[in-house]
C-alpha cells in the first residue's frame, strides 16, 4: 500500500464517501449520542476502533470464509470486538461508559461496520482494509464530534464540557459561554436539524467545487461527485 493509497482511503472515508454524510449509515447512534462533544468523541473513537479491527479481521480471514456463511461470521467478529471495547470502556472510562450507555453495545448494529466488511474488507488486502477502516471510522468520528460540538454549543451554551469523562482527573465544566441555551438543539429534533445542515453543507461544497472544476476545464466530461 503506497502513501497515495493511504491518502486516497482517508479522503474517501473523511469526505467523498463519508459514512454519515454520504452513505447515511449508522444514523441511530449518530443522532442519539451527539448531545455533547465528549459523547461524540467517545462513541467516535469506539466506532473507529471496532471498524478498523473488524476490517482487519474480515480481510485476514477472507480466504477461508465461504460466501454463504460470511454474514454470521461478520456478526460474530463485530459482536466480539464490541464486547471487548465495552469491557475496556467500563474498566478505563467508566464515566463515559455511563454517559454513552446502551450505545456502546449497540455499535454492533451500526450498519456502517458490516457494510465496510462486505463492500471493502472482504475483497481487499489487510493493509488496504486497515486504511479503509481508519478513514471510514475517522469520517464517522469527525461527524459525530462536529454535530456534538454544534448541539452542545447551541443547546447548552458550553464548549468541551465534561472532558474529564475521557481524560480523567478533575471535573471539567468546559468553556461556558452562556448559562443554558436553546433547548431544542439537545432534544432529538436538534439532532436531525444538525445532520441535515451538515449534509447540505457538504453537498454545497461539492457542487461549488464541481462548478469551479468545470469552469477551469471546459469540455472535460469527467464525472465527479459521489459514485454511490
Amino acid at each position: 500500500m503506497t502513501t497515495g493509497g493511504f491518502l486516497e482511503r482517508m479522503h474517501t472515508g473523511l469526505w467523498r464517501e463519508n459514512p454519515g454524510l454520504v452513505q447515511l449509515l449508522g444514523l441511530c447512534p449518530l443522532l442519539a449520542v451527539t448531545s455533547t462533544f465528549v459523547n461524540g468523541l467517545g462513541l467516535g473513537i469506539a466506532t473507529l476502533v471496532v471498524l478498523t479491527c473488524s476490517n482487519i479481521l474480515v480481510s485476514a480471514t477472507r480466504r477461508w470464509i465461504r460466501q454463504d456463511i460470511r454474514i454470521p461470521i461478520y456478526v460474530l467478529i463485530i459482536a466480539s470486538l464490541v464486547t471487548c471495547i465495552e469491557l475496556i470502556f467500563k474498566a478505563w472510562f467508566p464515566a463515559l461508559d455511563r454517559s454513552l450507555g446502551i450505545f456502546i453495545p449497540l455499535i454492533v448494529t451500526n450498519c456502517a461496520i458490516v457494510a465496510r466488511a462486505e463492500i471493502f474488507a472482504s475483497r481487499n488486502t489487510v493493509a488496504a482494509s486497515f486504511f479503509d477502516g481508519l478513514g471510514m471510522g475517522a469520517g464517522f468520528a469527525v461527524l459525530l464530534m462536529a454535530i456534538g460540538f454544534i448541539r452542545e454549543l447551541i443547546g447548552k451554551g458550553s464548549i468541551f464540557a465534561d472532558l474529564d469523562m475521557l481524560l480523567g482527573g478533575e471535573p471539567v465544566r468546559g468553556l461556558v459561554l452562556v448559562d443554558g441555551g436553546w433547548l431544542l438543539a439537545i432534544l432529538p429534533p436538534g439532532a436531525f436539524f444538525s445532520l441535515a445542515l451538515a449534509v447540505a453543507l457538504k453537498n454545497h461544497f461539492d457542487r461549488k467545487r464541481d462548478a469551479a472544476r468545470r469552469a477551469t476545464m471546459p469540455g472535460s466530461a469527467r464525472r465527479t461527485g459521489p459514485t454511490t
Partner: protein
Amino acid sequence: MSGGVIKSGITLAAIAAICTLLVAATFQLTAERIAANEQAWLERSLEPALSGVIFEGSVTGSKLEIPPPHDLPGNDTAMIYRVFAEDAPVAALFAVTARDGYAGPIRILVGIGVDGTVTGIRIVDHRETPGLGDRIDQSRSDWVYQFDGRSLADPVEARWLLEVDGGEFDQLTGASVTPRAVINAIRDTLIYFDAHRDEIFLLPASEEQL
C-alpha cells in the same frame, strides 16, 4: 454438497471459538478494574445523600436487601444501606424506584437520619424530558435540596405534596408528573422508615452476591 456444509460448520465453529477466547481474555483482564470502578462509583454516589452525617466505615458495608413485596416505592428489590458510629445507628440510605415518572422509572436515593429527618435526596437515574422534568436532577437545579432536614412531622404527611396540589414543596414549571412521583416516593420511604425503624437497624447485613 454435504461436504460444503460440514466445512462451513467447522469454519464457523473455529471463528466462534477464537472470538469467545478474545472476549474471555478481555473479560479476565478488565474484571478487577470494572468491579473496583463500580464499587467506587457506588460509594461516591451514595455519600452525598448522607450530608452532615458522621459515620464509621463505608456506606456499602452494611447493606440490606429487601425483596419484593415490600411497602417501599418500586416493585423490585429495595436496597437499604445502614451507617453506624460507635455501633449505634446514625442513618439509613434507601435506594428506591419511583415507578410513576413521566418517562420511565426514576431511581432515587433517600437518606434518613435515625431521628427520621431527611439527610439528603439524590436522583440516581431517570429519563425525564431535558429542560423540563430533568430539573429534579441535582446537576440541573437545586430542587431536590428543599427536602433536606424535612421529616414526616415537617410538614405533616398530608402536606407532602407540590404547592399546586395543596402541599408545601416547590413545583417545576412545565413538569408536574415528575416532581409528584419523586415526592410520593420520598414520603412513602419516610413512612416505611417510621414503621420499621428498629427492625431495619437490627437485621444482619445481606450476603454479598457475586
